[in-house]
């Protein structure tokens, strides 16, 4: 059953429609009394360049519609909170300066975007769980991970552990992030977990399948799904700011990746190089600042001074059994760069 959450007129023969698919258990229809049922919502597409959630929405919707006899609650799927952005390959809303995920809880007296944001929050409020799926941006690849503000960690971590993700990152609170959809919902009593995975403008099907399984695992834990579900994998968990190391480019150039994403590396291992094609020089060797796991890695090759190249979770923050599994897989190289042959780029 497809419903319009927001309908606003455009100037020429079109309306902005933000829609959701509502799936009900077998035996229920739109006339039924739904008051006793729990509600689970999956949202994505706030940023028009983040498409990984499209696969998940499709799979969750398809599987549920084939198995409504095993569904015990309401599932609402919102695949496109920013239809214009998705249509035009734009992260934001075309013609609007602000990031859509910085205008929540919205304002029914503001611009079209702020008006839409207010309607979205109103519609999602009251869900027993909201999963808000993001996919990094055009530049960086992320392993499937939940991002949780420290303010809400006690409520959300027990649920996030069922999502079959690789990493739970509890980050510190910031005033700017209070304008996100997740914060607006969490602070008004609707539990919301942000999932980041993959990369912008692409589908990483393996991650999509992993999170889809995780959503069914979490729905089972919450008593909304009665069918089969995987036993969720044990995630890395970081709750301290010092657990995570940021790698920023010290110079502008072309980043050539050497280590694979989601690798375990030792301090000093070369993750990649920053090169100057005009001069044929290696400008910098990007070395691991600590021993641990690369959970974010740059995929887009051009870097400015300061561009984020990756993020690492320090080994000290990782449980021994999880760390062992990473150690056994070892550092995986994607290139055959013979690093010994590259001159330059050494730190003083």
């Amino acid at each position, binding site marked *: 059953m497809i419903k319009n959450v927001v309908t*606003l*007129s*455009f*100037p*020429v*023969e079109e309306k902005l429609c933000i829609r959701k698919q509502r799936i009900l258990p077998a035996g229920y229809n739109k006339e039924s009394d739904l008051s006793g049922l729990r509600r689970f919502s999956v949202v994505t597409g706030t940023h028009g360049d983040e498409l990984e959630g499209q696969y998940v929405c499709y799979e969750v919707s398809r599987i549920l519609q084939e198995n409504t006899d095993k569904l015990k609650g309401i599932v609402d799927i919102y695949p496109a909170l920013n239809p214009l952005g998705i249509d035009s390959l734009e*992260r*934001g809303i075309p*013609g*609007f*300066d*602000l990031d859509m995920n*910085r*205008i929540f809880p919205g304002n*029914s*007296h*503001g*611009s*079209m975007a702020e*008006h839409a944001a207010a309607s979205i929050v109103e519609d999602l409020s009251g869900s027993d769980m909201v999963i808000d799926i993001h996919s990094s*941006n055009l*530049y960086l690849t992320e392993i499937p991970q939940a991002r949780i503000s420290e303010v809400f960690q006690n409520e959300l971590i027990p649920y996030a552990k069922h999502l079959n993700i690789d990493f739970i990152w509890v980050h510190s609170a910031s*005033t*700017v*992030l*209070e*304008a996100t959809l997740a914060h607006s919902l969490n602070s008004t009593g609707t539990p919301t977990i942000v999932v980041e995975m993959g990369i912008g403008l692409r589908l990483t099907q393996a991650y999509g399948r992993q999170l889809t399984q995780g959503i069914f695992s979490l729905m089972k834990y919450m008593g909304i799904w009665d069918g089969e579900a995987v036993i969720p994998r044990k995630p890395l968990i970081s709750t301290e700011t010092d657990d995570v190391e*940021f790698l*920023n480019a010290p*110079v*502008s*150039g*072309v980043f050539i990746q050497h280590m694979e994403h989601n690798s375990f590396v030792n301090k000093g291992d070369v993750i990649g190089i920053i090169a*100057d094609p*005009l001069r044929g020089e290696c400008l910098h060797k990007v070395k691991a600042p600590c021993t641990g796991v690369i959970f974010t890695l740059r995929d887009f090759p*051009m870097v*400015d*001074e*300061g*561009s*984020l190249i990756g993020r690492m979770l320090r080994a000290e923050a990782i449980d021994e059994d999880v760390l062992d599994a990473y150690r056994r897989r070892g550092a995986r190289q994607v290139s055959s760069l013979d690093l010994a042959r590259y001159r330059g780029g050494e730190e003083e």
Partner: protein
Amino acid sequence: MKKILLFSKDSLYRENMKVYGYLFGTDTLEEGKKTIAVVSGMRGNEFTQIYEASQLVKRLKILEEQGRVRRDKGILVVPAVNPYSINSEKRFWPSDNTDINRMFPGYDLGETTQRVAASLFNVLDGFEYGIHLTSHYISGNFVPHVSIQDTGRDYAESAKAFGLAYIRLRRPSHYDTTTLNYNWQIWNTRAYSIYGGDDKAVDREVSERVVSAILNFMNANGMIEFDHHRGFISSLITEDDICVIKSSHAGFFDCSARAGDYVRKGMRLARIIDTGSGEVISEIKAPEDGTILFIQSNPLAFADSQLMLLVR
């Protein structure tokens, strides 16, 4: 006048981005001489604002040659914080579309625009007064006015020295906490943002008024001698004094009102014209008596969206 390189940033294939300041009244930016900084061009399409800063440099140079700039008061004007975006005709940072004015106070080990913000804030921190010539997130035409964050309410009266029509006190939204204005006043600079004119082209008339307003302010605070017309007796307004005018219909936005017009309740301000049939499908009337503060420049109206602001 001394033109100084404030900071630069390297690039693989472009020339280094160089951000210059024009210094008056003193030769160095040492502590105790940081009196006022005027900053513009943080976004690549803030043409009127960049023009205003350039005209301010020109006027200050003449005043300095005439001996009318105090020697112990440092005046810094930075017309173009973001040459890379201006030169590539982008509003935001060319490679990642981030807004420098959402990155303050900056972080010198962070991402590119955080580093630009940090380099700039390193220069701007410690000034007694700070003026940011800036533009709104909705493209349009503003009556020139001074905007101050609500958190700077204690110095709002001082903005009357500009002699602009309005001093607008704004409650900071979450996203405002990373602007230059907000961070300046957190670090004890009296910060003023000046909005005005249309952002599609250089508005010379508005620029002239804004430059005079800044010179008025500098004169009133003992930085320069400038005896010119003093402008308006400013009204202090808050969000409660501002009425948002929207349209319930979408179509061509045929606006007959102009920013600055005084209108009476019920007066027709604009018509919404159907984009197919050409028929007038709605008229927008003034909801009460007041002055138009802002009109959007988009020729199209979207339904339920802000088109104008009216000061009651």
